């Protein structure tokens, strides 16, 4: 297909691409453009070009290693076609058995930004201590300073949360208003029912 030989030459961008893939293969978490540029000691624009080359090389269907933009940075993951094989060898300890309560808590913190346990409890109408503790343990929530008023600890979602849910960043979450479609849908169905009624 397309220029698979480019990475082999000693053209500077290709060398930078090699450096970038080296950084990505050893990194423990997604790397931002700035982190990549500062480690590669090159400028961000050129690193972006290199990432473009790598994105073409490491993509679904073409490679078992896939470059993805996730959690505000870039990272390698396994291709989806290898999911079954990965499932045989690796566990998914973080997302396994996430309860409805845990998902609601994550939704609250992801959408509303840093929240305290009482905040979460008020919104859900149930105490949040156990759920928050579980999410902290899974690394999906982390402490984010203290509340100005009460001094209660606030929690934020972590890059790991973004990564598990495959979000490029928190802004990739759909808008809450869009999720409210349900109300529209309800109204329509109500009207449909009303229209059926014999006058």
């Amino acid at each position, binding site marked *: 297909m397309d220029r698979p030989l480019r990475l082999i030459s000693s053209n500077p961008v290709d060398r930078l691409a090699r450096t970038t893939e080296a950084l990505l293969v050893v*990194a423990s978490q997604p790397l931002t453009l700035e982190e990549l540029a500062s480690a590669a000691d090159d400028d961000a624009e050129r690193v972006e070009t290199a990432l473009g080359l790598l994105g073409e090389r490491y993509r679904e269907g073409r490679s078992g290693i896939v470059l993805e933009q996730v959690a505000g940075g870039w990272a390698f993951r396994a291709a989806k076609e290898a999911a079954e094989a990965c499932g045989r060898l690796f566990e998914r300890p973080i997302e396994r058995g996430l309860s*409805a309560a845990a998902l609601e808590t994550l939704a609250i913190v992801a959408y509303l930004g840093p929240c305290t346990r009482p905040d979460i409890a008020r919104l859900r109408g*149930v105490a949040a201590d156990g759920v928050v503790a579980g999410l902290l343990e899974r690394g999906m929530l982390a402490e984010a300073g203290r509340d100005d008023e009460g001094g209660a600890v606030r929690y934020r979602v972590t890059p790991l949360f973004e990564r598990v849910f495959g979000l490029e960043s928190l802004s990739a979450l759909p808008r809450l208003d869009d999720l409210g479609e349900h109300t529209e849908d309800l109204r329509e169905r109500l009207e449909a029912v009303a229209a059926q009624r014999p006058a």
Partner: protein
Amino acid sequence: MAVRELELDIDAFEGPFDLLLTLVLKQELEPAEVDVATIVLAFLERLAERDELDLDACGEFLVLVAALLELKARGLFEFDDETLDELDPEEAAEELARRLAEYRRIRAAAAWLSERLEQESGRYFRLGPAPLAPRPARRVAPQDPALLGDAFRRLASDPPSVSLAHMALRFPPVAQFLGRFRAVLARRRRFDFDTEVRGLTRAEAAVAFLALLELRKAGEIELDQASPFAPIRVARPQRREEEENEWIARSA
């Protein structure tokens, strides 16, 4: 038409309406999990299938659904009932509507996350460091060489003479406390260890505690402590007391 038998199929529940109400009342189903709008729609759709308006059914349904809504509202207001009391009914209704809308959005967001997790279940990535990743380099700022001389001098100075002060501590014999605690338990069924050793020196209190452990080991007492650092309650063992009572009863 029997409202109670209305078949429901909502996220949290599938079955007849009266079973749903029973589960909510028995607190086996969170009212917050129950999507009341879907129930209303199910009822209306059933109603629409008929030619005439079933007023009895409508009345019954209104009563049941109102009860369910109240339960659900109370659940959402659980944490600030006082605020609710301060509001006049109209304000409370508005506040409630606002909260319900907010909660509905959170539920929708959670549902979106859940779907997303399902879609992304085929994404595997490494957690933690790569197997052959370089080890993080640790760097030290420039240091004053005089520190090395100082460190060496510290090592070369004579060690301080060891304090033998603790050798002079007086430890009373354990037997003294064994006798004392047995005497207390002969008079009373239970006593508070902390009260009993109040005023003793640390060394004496330590020996008293040892005596306590001895008595426990021998089964002469039972120990109870509500939480770490809470007062230790010492009591005659239940079994022994029963035996004694039995003996008293038999000899009577």
